[in-house]
């Protein structure tokens, strides 16, 4: 047994033992044999741990003997990184440079104003500014200034400053990765990249228009809506048609005529090129007539005669063509021919 125990590697910290020399000469054929063999060998291994464990110095307890385990020899990886040391705050750095040391202070102090023991900090503390009913005026005081309000404002400023300092120190700690576990530094506003657009000032008119549109955005067009006190009537509400007086007079009457004239002239100017040109129309008409006649002739004649016929009438045609353009009657006479 002792010789076997020497072979085992026992790690008391993990209650683990390891037999690196064992190997099956021949793997047992049946499952039961294998299990039995394993449990038998395992018993030996556990016995080896138990031997060294029960030989450790123990202290008696109500629940049984307590044993202090040695630190484990098998190293296992950590779950998380080691906690990082917190960087010193600005005050701590300053205090170190100046050699300022922390002193213990009493929690309660003697308050001479009230003649009682009072806390150093917090509610109902000694030398509380709030308790002083009268502040004596000094020569340096500015007239018209409330000393109580001033003191309150100063206190508020100090608190804000302290909060700023605290945040700065926390930021430094976050950089070192040593932020306290319960604190989270969160951005209150997202960082803006690029140039921010200038905020647009909305004019009074624009606001009025928008308000008017909103007010009429109901089924009844805002007819039955209650008016708020001080609400002005809507400024712009859709299109307005204006009808001018038809009767001619000194002022507006003429305006109406001008308006219609304007519309008329516009239409005329648009279609001016389409107004009938009599000469052009007549010439067009004659050309058409001639063409139809030629076609009738061409159908009856042979190709050779066609050439001749074509050449002759062209000459003839040119002459009468020039004449009738001047007068309608001439063309009519030609027709008769």
């Amino acid at each position, binding site marked *: 047994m002792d010789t076997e125990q020497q072979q085992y590697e026992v790690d008391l910290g993990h209650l683990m*033992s390891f037999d690196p020399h064992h190997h099956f000469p021949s793997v047992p054929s049946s499952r039961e044999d294998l299990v039995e063999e394993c449990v038998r060998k*395992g018993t030996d291994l556990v016995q080896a741990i138990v031997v060294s464990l029960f030989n450790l110095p123990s202290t008696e307890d109500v629940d049984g003997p*307590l044993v202090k385990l040695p630190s484990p020899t098998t190293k296992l990886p*950590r*779950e998380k990184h080691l906690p990082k040391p917190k960087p010193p705050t600005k005050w701590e750095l300053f205090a170190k440079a100046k050699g300022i040391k922390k002193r213990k202070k009493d929690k309660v102090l003697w308050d001479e104003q009230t003649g009682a023991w009072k806390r150093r900090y917090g509610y109902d503390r000694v030398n509380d500014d709030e308790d002083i009913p009268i502040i004596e005026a000094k020569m340096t005081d500015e007239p018209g200034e409330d000393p109580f309000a001033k003191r309150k404002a100063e206190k508020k400023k100090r608190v804000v400053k302290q909060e700023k300092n605290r945040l700065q120190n926390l930021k430094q700690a976050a950089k070192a990765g040593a932020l306290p576990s*319960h604190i*989270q530094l969160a951005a209150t506003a997202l960082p803006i990249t690029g140039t921010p657009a200038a905020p647009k000032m909305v004019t009074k008119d624009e606001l009025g228009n928008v308000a008017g549109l909103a007010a009429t955005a109901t089924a009844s067009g805002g007819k039955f809506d209650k008016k708020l006190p001080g609400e002005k009537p809507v400024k712009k509400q859709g299109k307005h048609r204006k009808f001018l007086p038809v009767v001619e007079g000194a002022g507006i009457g003429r305006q109406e005529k001008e308006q219609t004239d304007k519309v008329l002239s516009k239409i005329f100017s648009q279609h001016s090129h389409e107004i009938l040109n009599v000469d052009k129309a007549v010439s067009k008409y004659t050309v058409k007539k001639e063409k139809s006649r030629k076609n009738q002739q061409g159908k009856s004649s042979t190709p050779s005669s066609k050439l001749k016929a074509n050449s002759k009438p062209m000459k003839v045609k040119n002459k009468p063509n020039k004449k009738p353009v001047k007068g309608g009657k001439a063309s009519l006479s030609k027709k008769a021919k």
Partner: protein
Amino acid sequence: MLKAKTPKKGRIKRELEKRAPKLVETGKKTLILQGTKMSRVLNAVLADLYHLKRESAIRYTRKNDNIRPFESGGESSLEFFSQKTDCSIFLYGSTSKKRPDNLVIGRTYDHHIYDLVEVGVENFKPISSFTYDKKVAPHVGSKPFIAFLGEGFESVDELKHLKEVLLDLLRGEVVENLNLTGLDRAYVCTAVSSNRVFLTHCAIRLKKSGTIVPHVELVEVGPSMDLVARRHRLPNESLRKEAMKTAKDRPKKKIKNVSADAIQGKVGKIYIPDQKIGDMALPNKSKGVKRERREAKMKNGNKERASKKQKEDSE
């Protein structure tokens, strides 16, 4: 602009403090989850392993279709779960035609995957199939013995890795002081061949042997299974170095009211609270009772109560 956010409730603050990195760690929590396909065997394996580690494990029973621990990009969801549950060991079960009854055991460091071991489960016998004397049944959360057996754990790379991971998985809570009467379980891992490990869970019976060292007897209580090594991924060397760091000096707990003196030696202070004689509770002066009854009581003494007591005594 920055703003320091702190939890509104003390319970949450305490929970966060528990999760913060510590100098000396007390043990790892285990997350048990599964892929899209599960076999009946593997379901039973995960259930039994969860049962064994009940006090420090979290079981997820939903299908996870985007977890592939060995592939890049398949670990993001796993790391998120690790962060969410504060677990640093995970057991991921899945089955496929290529890898039937596949179990991935992995560890994380700082909620990022540290190493992975993949094993196939064979010859599984669940806890329910074992019959034994229930008196020896191990208690929940007791510290186990772990026995590794076979040269395979030293010579074969995969088994060597598997041994370390199994030790981390099974070791239970990390303790300094151990009660010897609470020892009631042992895990036996045997390297049967170069890629096969037989793992079984036994109860311990300590028998008197005449000396201070008792005699050990192992009773198999299950589960037992064969683990066939498949793929494995060792940790990055630099990450390993980082993760193996330990605190040089343990933080000493401040002992109150004890001081060392050069002449007197160890000196202790004892505080005795005031004897509150003035505030001693007097009978029959309770203000809740009407004045007439109170006065009557004072006059007559404790007759009523006395009679009641007598009744009780006679019975």
